[in-house]
């Protein structure tokens, strides 16, 4: 999984980073956005819906920060 570290960044920066870097994984591959900004919990799934990617779910990174996992499907 490609990890995109967005700790300390505020919206819309985490989603901008996700959009920039999704192309670095193959179709079927995973990207994990680690973000401290509360809006990412809503905006990462919304980004997936709007751009046709798959939202896999939320898990915790090693330091407890939420990690939002996305599968590239196109």
């Amino acid at each position, binding site marked *: 999984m490609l990890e995109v570290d967005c700790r300390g960044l505020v919206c819309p920066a985490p989603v901008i980073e996700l959009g920039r870097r999704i192309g670095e994984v193959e179709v079927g591959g995973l990207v994990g956005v680690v973000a401290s900004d*509360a809006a990412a919990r809503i905006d990462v799934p919304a980004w997936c819906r709007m751009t046709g990617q798959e939202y896999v779910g939320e898990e915790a990174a090693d330091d407890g920060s939420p990690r939002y996992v996305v599968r590239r499907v196109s």
Partner: protein
Amino acid sequence: MRSPTLRTLSEPGPGLGGGSPGKSDRWGGRKVYFGGVSTETPGGEVEPARRVYLDSASGESLHPAARQAFAAALETAYADPRRLHHAGRSARLVLDNARAATAEALGVRPDEVTFVSSGTEAVHRGLLGLHRGAARTGARIVHTAVEHSAVLHAATWSGATTRAVAVDATGRVRLDDLDVTDATVVACQSANHEVGTVQPVAEVADLLDGASLFVDACASAGRLPLPERWSALAASAHKWGGPPGVGILVVRRGARWRDPFPEDDRAAEHERGFENVASVLASAAALQAVVADRDAENLRVHALVSWIRRVVGGIPDVEVVGDPSERLPHLVSFSCLYVDGEALVTELDRLGFEVASGSACTASTVEPSHVLAAMGALTHGNVRVSVGRDTTEDDVARFLDVLPGVVERLRARV
């Protein structure tokens, strides 16, 4: 039934007409500021000939009928309406007249109407009064997840346990998630203030199982008829072209409502504090005028908003949120991927277009809009556009001309 004619009493009250309390040397000291903000902009671009106000959902411009009524009432209705002297009776007549006109325009009884200082206060009193009135039959306040923050804060302040009812992707309350166990009151707005979706209040009323229904109608009152079968309801005059500072609380006769705040030695149950009589009359005048014209005006603004929805929906990576058909006629909300909402508002303002944003991207401590979050809608890059009485087709055309370029430029900056 003929509408009550709004009277302000043409005869001057005692003590009026002599002297001139308005002379500027009377008070001395600091001057009251009457000016507007500077139109010079940091970007240095030339302002367009006419600024375009697209935020009527926050505050509609004062209706000419309100202006006229306000000026007349200031002359005659300054005294305490509870006093028995001539000036007091003059104020009382104006107040009762405004109450009758307001009740008639809203389709309720005059003795159900209380004038308070804002929509927020009407929400607080309405919701908390129903909660208190049902204290023996329940302990919980239930509300939709997309209520105005005034409802959420009042519920929290009450100390009661609360439960939020989920909404679907359009912001419409999900009836299958409505659990009224142990509920004193269920709060369901008439329509959502951020995204415009009209709520199925009548269907909620079918599922109360003894709980009272509170309706925050601030977003729709005046523009749409009130829903039915609630116990208490809140409205706000500046949303329909009345002055700010007038909230309207309607408590149905027979509702289980007990004043949640300290008692007030006033003439009647439905009176609280010394009313802002001139503003209350202005509010009633605006409401009458708006209700009389609303069928045609709603068609006009509905078409303008449909046009905005269509064009905005065609901008890449922009999502129009809220129900496309079951909606308020005058507002639309949309979210733009990869754009900061505040930057959008600032750039549009620089170009002469005044819009609101539901996004809070400037500080990491600020929570995203709870309305957009509950819908699962993109919370950043959000803009709410609302057209009003003064908005023209040309205004909308110019807005739609500049918007795609603004979004594109802001995206290129990041």
